[in-house]
């Protein structure tokens, strides 16, 4: 064997060896990705941890202290289908994305609307619900308005919950109006009833429910929802398995009608009202 031949053979062997390790590396990466998925963590722990905050009727506390709401039904059903137990981790809305990122819970199921800004930090699944904005306006301070654009007026003060799509909606629809942000929706709505602010922007059905119980102090200027949004589960980035799992779960539960039925129960019907003592 001459030197050239020997060099050639070792070169080929080297390339083959390198190629094989390359393939092995790829295999490793795939295995690692799968084993590090949050789905795997949930299965091993036997418990799924859900991050959520309280919005009527997405998530509430019933009279007996239990969690109730559309969100709770969805999360419970996911856990049931996975065969694991569920733990709810109520978290203030402002801190919910940082808490997800730092691993305080596995997934956020909290009626979180998909926005490009949020998507830059976390991943969203396919939407499992959609909603739209409505306005509750004070009947004395701003009577007789019928269009969303009527609220784009520097003399009008509008409230919305901090960090929600309500704030985005006010800035988009009524950039001239004064915006006041609230930490709690009930407080903002009470201000609208008292006339401290003129209107409150929120996702349906919060405004309708407030108007219905306000004895004419509030009215709905528009009947059709606007600034529609889609709500999805949120998971940490870099976890394709989790996205796939939840996407297919959502597809399945929409196809068999379960999601629509639950959504109708919480958002259209009012049978649940006495569970939370709303009089």
């Amino acid at each position, binding site marked *: 064997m001459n030197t050239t031949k020997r060099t050639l053979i070792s070169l080929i062997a080297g390339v083959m060896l390198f190629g094989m390790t390359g393939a092995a590396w790829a295999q490793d990466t795939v295995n690692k990705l799968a084993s590090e998925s949050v789905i795997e963590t949930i299965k091993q722990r036997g418990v799924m941890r859900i991050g959520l905050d309280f919005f009527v009727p997405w998530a509430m506390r019933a009279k007996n202290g239990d969690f109730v709401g559309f969100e709770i039904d969805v999360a419970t059903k996911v856990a049931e289908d996975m065969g694991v137990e569920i733990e709810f981790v109520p978290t203030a809305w402002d*801190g919910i994305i940082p808490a997800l990122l730092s691993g305080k819970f596995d997934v956020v199921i909290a009626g979180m609307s998909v926005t490009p800004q949020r998507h830059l930090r976390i991943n969203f699944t396919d939407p499992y619900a959609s909603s739209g904005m409505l306005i509750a306006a004070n009947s004395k301070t701003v009577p007789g308005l019928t269009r969303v654009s009527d609220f784009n007026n520097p003399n009008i003060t509008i409230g919305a919950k901090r960090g929600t799509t309500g704030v985005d909606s006010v800035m988009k629809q009524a950039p001239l109006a004064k915006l006041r942000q609230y930490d709690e929706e009930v407080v903002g709505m009470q201000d609208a009833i008292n006339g401290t602010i003129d209107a409150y922007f929120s996702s349906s059905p919060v405004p309708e429910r407030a108007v219905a119980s306000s004895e004419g102090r509030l009215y709905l200027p528009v009947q059709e929802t606007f600034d529609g949004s889609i709500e999805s589960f949120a998971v940490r980035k870099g976890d394709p398995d989790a996205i796939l799992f939840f996407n297919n779960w959502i597809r399945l539960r929409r196809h068999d009608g379960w999601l629509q039925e639950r959504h109708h129960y919480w958002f259209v019907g009012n049978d649940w009202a006495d569970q939370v003592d709303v009089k």
Partner: protein
Amino acid sequence: MRASRGRGKTLRWGWLDVVLLGLIVLVGLYLWRRAAAEVFYRWDWSVVPEYLVYQNPETGDWRANLLMHGIYATLRLAFWGTLIALIIGVVMGCCRVSRNLFLRLVSRTYVEATRNIPPLVIIFVVYFFVSSQIMPLLGIADWVRHTEGALRTVIEVSFGPTALIENFLSGLLVLAAFEAAYFTEIIRAGIQSVEKGQWEAGDSIGLSRFKVMRYVIMPQAIQRTIPPLAGQLISLVKDSSMVSLISVQDLTYSGTQVAISTRKIFEIWIFIAVVYFVICFSLSLVSRWLERRMGRGLQ
């Protein structure tokens, strides 16, 4: 009664008292009427007892509900927070007056860093960066989740629901570390307020520095620090509401949840204010009693 005992004067109703009291009542009534006219709100106090204890309509059993759990959580935070803060505070306080430069530097840095950063920022930094690294390493959450029987009951009574134990511990540590900085300064001032002669007297009978501290200085210092410590303790109870930001289900956060669900904001917040007042006021009473008792012991 107390005033008469203290200064030898008797309290008597004068015409000024009647006028002042009448004025206060009038202003109160005016404000109430204004509020009733301006604010549209349907009061319903039944929401408070209902969320305090719940009776199962089928079995008739009573059990603690959300607000009661919130009160327990706040009491737990106050209890453990005080204990840990006192330990850190005494140790750091002694370091502040130590003859060792390193110890003085460490304690000074701790106090200044903690006192001069807003507590909210500390809470977030510790919770999101420090505790999210340390807690999983310790494996507390997994360990607690698999405990059973009596041990689990003990843990639940001391630290609350096992599912949220990491949050509780993080919140507790932040709260204790934060308040301990103030405790440190109070203890330091207490130690330094003891006259130099006491140190010298201890030295002259041949006690070691530690023994002088333990038997001569500390008993006097602690008695002097009780009033400011009690004040700081009351702050601790009120500051504990801040940890609701990191999912600790204390009284404030439980109350918020009930207020959102039932839309009865005023009743719930008034109730929460009353509970905080009762807790803090009883602490004041205990500190007064303790102060008088220790004062008697030293005379």
